[in-house]
């Protein structure tokens, strides 16, 4: 029973929000390859949402485009989530490994990505007055992903409902801390780099004179 291929697992998980991840855990399914594909798809979905929309819905002027925020919003946020969740749930008797958190969380993002792409298509045929279709698709995707993410965390760690809620809230805090530390680290390294660089130029001048 339930001998599915990796691709069938993806489909099974997305369309069975309440027991899909339990099945996945039971059968030890899921693949990191799909995680990579999903994260790349998320990256392109975010860019598509800002750049490939029909012009009547375009929120961002062309001149202000930069790729960095999109990398931030997809790759960095995702790994901060995984890292934060792993760090919190190890302390809270969670059973998930880093690999499983990665796989389960990424599978949960699929409805959001798909709804974004559907929306990008819709903006080319809708006008502003018909925005309700657009927002419907958006919120369906968002809520679906929310439910999937919740059930992913619940089953990967084998938590109760309340413990999952607590874990998610704590994970969000952990993400903040991680990102804050990253910024701190980066600016510190920049200072160190500048210090060594000025040392180098100083020596260069001295030896020359």
């Amino acid at each position: 029973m339930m001998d599915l291929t990796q691709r069938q697992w993806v489909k099974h998980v997305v369309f069975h929000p309440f027991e899909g991840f339990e099945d996945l855990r039971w059968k030890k399914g899921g693949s990191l390859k799909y995680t990579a594909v999903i994260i790349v798809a998320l990256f392109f979905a975010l860019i598509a949402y800002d750049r490939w929309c029909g012009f009547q819905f375009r929120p961002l002027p062309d001149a202000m485009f930069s790729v960095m925020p999109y990398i931030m919003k997809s790759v960095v946020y995702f790994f901060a989530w995984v890292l934060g969740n792993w760090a919190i749930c190890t302390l809270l008797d969670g059973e998930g490994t880093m690999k499983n958190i990665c796989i389960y969380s990424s599978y949960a993002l699929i409805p959001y990505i798909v709804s974004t792409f559907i929306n990008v298509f819709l903006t080319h045929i809708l006008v502003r007055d018909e925005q309700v279709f657009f927002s419907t698709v958006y919120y369906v995707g968002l809520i679906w992903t929310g439910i999937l993410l919740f059930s992913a965390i619940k089953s990967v760690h084998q938590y109760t409902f309340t413990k999952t809620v607590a874990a998610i809230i704590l994970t969000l805090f952990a993400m903040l801390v991680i990102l804050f530390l990253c910024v701190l680290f980066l600016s510190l390294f920049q200072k160190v780099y500048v210090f060594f660089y000025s040392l180098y130029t100083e020596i260069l001048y001295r030896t020359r004179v």
Partner: protein
Amino acid sequence: MKNKSKHSLTIMRGAAAGLVCLIALSSFKSPVTADEPYDVYNYNYLGEAVPSQAGYLAERSVSGLDLGTTALNAPSDLFKDSQDFFYLVDSGNNRILKIDSEFTEIVQEYTSFKMPDGSETSLKNPKGVYVSPDTGLMYIADNENARALIVNPDGTVKQEITKPESTVYDQQLTFLPQKILCDNAGNIYIVLNNTTKGAAMFNAAGEFIGYYGANSVAPTAEVIANHFWNAIASEDEKRYRSRSTPTAFDNFDIDTVKGFIYTSTSAGSTDTDIVKKVNPEGYNLFDYMSNFRWGDLFSTWYSGTTYKTKIVDIDIGDDGSINCLDATTGRVFQYDKEADLLFIMGATGDQVGSFAQGNVAAIETKGEGCENIYVLDAGKGTVTIFGQTVFGQIVHYATKLYNGGYYEEALEPWLEVLKRDGNYRRAYLGISSAYYNMGRYKDSMEYAKKADASGRYNKAFERYRSQWLRAHLTQILIITAVLIAGIKGLKFFLRKKRKKAAETAKAGSDS
């Protein structure tokens, strides 16, 4: 090098433009040929300064000696009446000069006037002048004599307005008129420099009626906090608390056709109510544009001083354009009547067309399409005359048509504008509107996209979509039907095949 190439480019463009102009728009005059001593710019929709074509070029500057009289001494106001005569208030010399429309010679010099009782009276540091288009009466703000004079065209004083004795007017205040004008009903408005309540308003008989068009207080955090503390303070404490008072506007002009009074405020401490359009009831019609920045969008900071736009005078052109004079940068900002920026001209410097910082005092315009702009430089005692370029003429022509709702007629001039300046965003908007009205929705969408106007694109796209759907309805229906049938057939075919395969497999395992 840069200047040279720019110059040759201007000539090339001028030549090509002149040709097209002669063919297409024969009503326009020949281009003004000179090079401006500054980089011409305009703001794009993101609020960034981008290079632009000059709409006006400084032609010449006129001093008192050029006009055949002594040098001007701290002149403070310039006014053009309905017959295109100019009135220049030469404050330091206590006189008013009436100058001909070409600004070459003095028609009349007013130094003293005959009072109704027969005595002679002279001016003392006059600051403002206005001539009514209906009656021809001249209104003079005679500052240090603490009065305003209403003078008949023949030079006799008709009426003298002095400090009102009304209780509404605080009797401890002096009455020192700065600027003056009168509306179509004969009401007289006088800007005083010691009240924030607005302009003192007198009826045609010279009786004080009240104040008109005061600025409002911007609701900053400090003002709100102040309001709160005042509400809970005792009467005694209140006397020592600071009160939030608005800044006073210090110059104004009247749109004689429509009757609106435009006020300008030069105080640098506020960003609200810099320019107001006040209706006869005293209500500011530009109130909804409270976030609009008049003049330069950014202030510059240089060695401890912030240089910020300071609008000292405002003039409403005959075509309704709003011309603001910025004393900080010596620039003129010209807006159309919808407050869309048309042109920026002028700079700080010593060449013709540029002014010493803080020296400019007054601005006037002349012509149906605002062909000339006159800037009074109080420091040098000169009037600089700006003339419209071909580009400026076309933009004004197109703007006039566009604002009047003649979108299709404005198409040709807007296309002409784009040939000269691809950065001019309003041209893209104008062309988009024209094509929309003509039913060319695809083209309208294209130009709306170029102008980055997604609202306008949305409108055009809606029409384009329904047009497209109507044209292709049969094809769409046929294709959908074929697709559905095809998918159904394929599914049926696949299921049959699978069934067959399963049956043969079953048969194989059974045997």
